[in-house]
């Protein structure tokens, strides 16, 4: 079109010359026009390919024939945690067999280090876990885990070490499964109380009307230690058992530390100690180790957890009793919530969740009867 215009404009006189020049510029325009349009086409092609291309698809997660659960334990060597872990694995296996959906449990130990646990959480999320099951090292630092989980949209179940309420309320996909610390303490106290009521002399060996006890406490930062310590003693007091504290010590839930402490105390207070109240079974067993080594008899020992070893000790008569939270049920609860959430389903109706978040595992006393 431009060509014809130019021709008209150039008129007759210059027609020869005019035509020549106009032809030149039109052909120039032809090339550049063609070039531009060609490039445009290519550009469109390229961007089209670009946009449509390769988004990495998470193969495994999409086939809901399998679910992946990331579990981080605060310390795998903790006996109770270890027991729980076995139960968890069993529970996963049975779920697998019942429902035909493959369950992959990725279990890691944080070795008592919150940083390690954070790294593990990140790894879980990057591997595409559907649910996180976390036993936090530091319950006050749970918020960073919650942040990561929320960003990734992965429901998280905390257990055994309870995050603060404010943190738990940040998201509706956070859950907690645990044993009520107060309840366990009360039940522990109950064991002694019951025995005392039955036969005071079995507790008060020297018959002086005072039950002298030593107290083995868990980690100072753990809220369970405080609660258990407080309420086990309180229960005894409330029940009217005449207790008197000899000494107490922090054994950080560990058997060996409790063993060492107990040994010292036996040396320091020979013949005085009549009762050992321990915040957990491991420490109770440690005390028993020390007692055995010292060759002393007649000291009553109570613990909480009903670990396998603890139960053995109760059977063997070394420990008066322990508080059992049905680990099968405990693990089962975790499993139920986890699998439901992983499959995107609702939590089964028959599970009682306090505030829709908290599941308290049932506890009962376990003694040799």
């Amino acid at each position, binding site marked *: 079109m431009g060509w014809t215009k130019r021709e008209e404009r150039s008129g007759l006189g210059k027609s020869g010359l005019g035509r020549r020049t106009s032809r030149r510029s039109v052909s120039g325009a032809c090339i550049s026009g063609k070039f531009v349009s060609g490039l445009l086409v290519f550009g469109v092609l*390229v961007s089209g390919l670009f946009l449509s291309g390769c988004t990495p698809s998470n193969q*495994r997660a999409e086939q809901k024939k399998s679910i992946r659960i990331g579990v981080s334990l605060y310390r795998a060597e903790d006996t109770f945690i270890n027991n729980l872990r076995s139960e968890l694995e069993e529970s996963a296996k049975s779920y697998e067999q019942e429902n035909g959906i493959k369950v992959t449990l990725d279990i890691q130990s944080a*070795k008592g280090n919150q940083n390690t646990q954070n790294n593990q959480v990140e790894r879980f999320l990057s591997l595409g876990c559907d649910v996180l099951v976390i036993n936090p090292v530091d319950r006050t630092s749970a918020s960073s885990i919650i942040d990561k989980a929320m960003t990734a949209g992965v429901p998280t179940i905390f257990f055994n070490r309870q995050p603060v309420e404010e943190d738990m309320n940040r998201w509706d996909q956070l859950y907690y499964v645990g044993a009520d610390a107060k309840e366990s303490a009360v039940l522990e106290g109950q064991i002694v109380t019951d025995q005392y009521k039955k036969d005071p002399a079995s507790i008060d060996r020297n018959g002086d009307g005072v039950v002298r006890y030593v107290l083995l406490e868990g980690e100072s930062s753990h809220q369970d230690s405080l609660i258990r310590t407080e309420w086990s003693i309180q229960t005894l007091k409330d029940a009217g058992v005449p207790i008197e504290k000899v000494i107490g010590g922090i054994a950080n839930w560990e058997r060996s530390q409790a063993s060492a402490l107990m040994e010292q105390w036996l040396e320091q207070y020979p013949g005085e100690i009549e009762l050992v109240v321990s915040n957990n079974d491991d420490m109770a067993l440690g005390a028993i180790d020390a007692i055995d080594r010292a060759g002393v008899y007649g000291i009553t020992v109570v613990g909480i957890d009903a670990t396998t070893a603890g139960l053995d000790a109760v059977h063997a008569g070394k420990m008066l009793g322990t508080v059992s939270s049905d680990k099968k049920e405990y693990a089962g609860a975790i499993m139920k919530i986890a699998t439901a959430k992983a499959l995107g389903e609702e939590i089964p109706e028959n599970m009682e969740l306090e505030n829709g978040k908290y599941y308290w595992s049932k506890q009962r006393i376990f003694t040799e009867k």
Partner: protein
Amino acid sequence: MKAREKLFVAVYVLFLVVLYLLSSTDLIIKERRQEICPISIVADTTSDEYYVNFKKGMDQAGIEFHADVRFVTLYEENQTDQQIDLLMREQQDGARVLISVAVDETSLENALADKQISVPIVVIGTELPMDKVSAVVMTDTYEMGKTLARKAIEENEPDVRFYVFGGEKENSKVRRFYDGISSALEKEGRTAIRISDPGEGENFRSTIESLVYPESGTAVILALDPKSLEMTADILAGSSVYQTYVKGLYGRGTTVKILNELDKGIIRGVCVTDEFSLGYLSVRQAVAVAKNQTVQDPIVLPNYYIEKEDLRNPKYEKMLYPIE
């Protein structure tokens, strides 16, 4: 000329676009976004209790070689068909390579022959290498047995009786171990009494108790698998009386408990391999297989005989107590 020039220009533009795509976008040459290679390991046990070190090595290799390693245990001990089922399930689930600690290597080989499993398999084995698998990482349990038996004979009086404690269900490892022990014993002209136990150790206990008679002489117990070893150690630890009659407890395994018992003197000697390396190498081989790289011949890990003093030997320290 004009037409030729236009053609040239068009071809050149195409060339430019291709170059651009090659160099600046991911369309043609994919930035090797570290593809995570899914690998599944199917063990021969129901729990990973005796695979702790192995798993550590496995995890380390997983991080290094960008592999997503899953450790799968059986529902029931020593069930070959279960193992094969699980292998197939894992294959269906998208595993690029499978690693198997074969319950029974012959049946596994048969299963492979039937082409039920099409994904490459790395086998952690004890028997002679197999053809149908892509790679083998071996621990020679037979040799282990021989060494153990030999040491046991050396360190004890000529007149002790030999007992061999083991689980009821057999698998390749146990069988080979037992074969090794038997052959070594035979060579020295000794015999061993085989005691097996369904699970809780009652048979062991009763056998040991039966030794506690003044005339019965002393005995040496060889445990065929780590679990039996631990159970026996527990029994012996329970009473010092037993310990006077059982002069030595030997076995294999590297759990912390076993090592502690070794340290305490309840266990006399243990045959061990570097399980961390086993886990690491098997994953490494698996990744190599997945990438179609040439794989070496079967890697055979050496075994060692450890006694209490060796626990602190730097040579063994890291192997027995892997740093995480």
